[in-house]
């Protein structure tokens, strides 16, 4: 293993670099085309912008204001942040209760949560949308409740796996010191659960941020999240302006890239933990 020849090393690096280009190029192409006039995007997508096709930041300015894209970013941020917060807090509480109070009721609850993990969204998309309308959850605050309900299956599953490995003595000590169960949970247990909290938060943040169909059906006409806004740009107008589409995609990618490089270490660890348990 250690005595690899130089030529083998070179071929491995060449292969990896080739693969890197395959990963980067599609994104680069979008960036390149976001500065071009729409007429040149469909005919000459691989050409650099030149004097004729270059439009400066016009695609960005017109495209983003046309669909109120900054509003969409705010909706996406709001919905993602509060959905993840709700899932992490309420599902960890429920998971802990299910594990520590073992009776028929909690067992039933556990299996109900598991059921929701294996059912695809299409099964409930229509009836869930109607329920949300009746209960007035069809706004950017109400949708947080829907995400809590939908995310609860996987989150409870992952949390119960982790709570099982925490020794009961820790809780008993806290209770003897006069904590009530509620304080004990948030002051003693929640900090211990930090690794799994990070995993769940990352997986759910990725899901909610990129989710299309649920926000489209429930709040799509009034409040457009980022994926809904991009789809609207493509299908909501008579003819598509590809320049605007490209500029919008570039802006939509910026938060993802920042998020990725900010918590890359947690992200990859969290995903491995999540995948192995899920």
């Amino acid at each position, binding site marked *: 293993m250690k005595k690899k020849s130089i030529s083998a090393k070179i071929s491995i690096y060449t292969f990896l670099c080739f693969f890197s280009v395959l990963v980067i190029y599609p994104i680069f192409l979008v960036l390149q085309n976001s500065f071009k006039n729409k007429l040149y995007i469909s005919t000459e997508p*691989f050409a650099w912008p030149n004097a004729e096709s270059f439009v400066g930041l016009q695609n960005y300015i017109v495209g983003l204001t046309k669909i109120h894209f900054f509003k969409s970013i705010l909706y996406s941020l709001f919905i993602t942040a509060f959905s993840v917060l709700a899932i992490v807090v309420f599902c960890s509480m*429920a998971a802990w209760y299910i594990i520590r109070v073992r009776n028929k009721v909690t067992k039933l609850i556990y299996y109900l949560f598991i059921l929701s993990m294996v059912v695809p969204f*299409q099964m*409930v998309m229509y009836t869930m949308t109607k*329920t949300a309308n009746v209960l007035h959850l069809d706004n950017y605050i109400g949708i947080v409740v829907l995400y809590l309900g939908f995310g609860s299956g996987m989150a409870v599953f992952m949390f119960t796996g982790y709570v099982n490995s925490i020794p009961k003595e820790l809780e008993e000590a806290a209770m003897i010191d006069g904590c009530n169960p*509620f304080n004990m949970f948030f002051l003693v247990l929640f900090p211990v659960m930090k690794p799994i909290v990070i995993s769940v938060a990352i997986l759910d943040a990725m899901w909610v941020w990129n989710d299309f169909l649920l926000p489209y059906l429930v709040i799509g006409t009034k409040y457009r999240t980022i994926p809904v806004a991009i789809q609207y740009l493509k299908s909501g107008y008579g003819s598509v302006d590809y320049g605007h*589409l490209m500029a919008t995609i570039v802006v939509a990618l910026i938060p993802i890239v920042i998020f990725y490089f900010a918590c890359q270490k947690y992200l*990859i660890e969290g995903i491995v933990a999540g995948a192995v348990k899920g």
Partner: protein
Amino acid sequence: MQKLYAKKKYFIIFTLPCLLAYFISFFIPFVMGLYLSLTKFKTIRGARFVGLSNYKFVFRDFKGFLQALVFTSKVSIVAVILVNVIAFALALILSKQFRGTNLFRTLFFMPNLIGGIILGYIWQLLLNGILIRLYGVDITYDARFGYWGIIILYSWQKIGYLMIIYIAGIQAISGDILEASAIDGASSWQQLWRIIIPNVGGSITVCLFLSLTDTFKMYDQNLALTGGAPANQTKMLAMDIYDTYYNRVGFAGIGQAKAVVFTVLVFALGMLQLFITRKFEVKS
């Protein structure tokens, strides 16, 4: 201790918020959905019980559901094999320690963070550019273009993700076994088949499960890349269900029946796959 927790007050504090949301957004709609699949309806209150006739229609819907089922299966088989083989190969290379492994891992993983709709439009731009240059047509011209387009897009998105899971599996193999086998004269090829692959059974199970259920449930990528064109030939199951529901008047009951069949199908496939690979895992 358990007695204290079991008080009603704590049951309400700890489980009720989660349970309430679960019932509103999942369980009640799920039960309603099961019932509606047996009815004909335009609004939920106006539902009229029709027995199994919706299901009968679904299994004779050759141009719709069954065509989508065949197309989805074809995409799934090729995509699952391709994604897993490439991800595993990359994991083999990148699980060794040399300069730049972290950089490559970080880079390869990145596409996984991009949502399906955005991915669809990124690849539409690239693939249309290539197709127009080669054939003078775009991706909606021929179902084969859409077919390979979806597979390429999915591979690009998921290879990095599965690679990370495979790397975790490979790195968990103790170095002693590999060293011992090298001393006994095993070639790298023998090490791969006799030691590495049997020891990453868990990762293989997880990755196959993820990619299989993922491709079967795919919607966003399909919608953005081809939208089902040409003539619904590249529609996958999720899109066929959506269109039956929302784009055909009077077909809501049938759409719901399709969704039930879809649910059973995804569940059965997932379980079958877990059963088979788990068996293989135990053997090795």
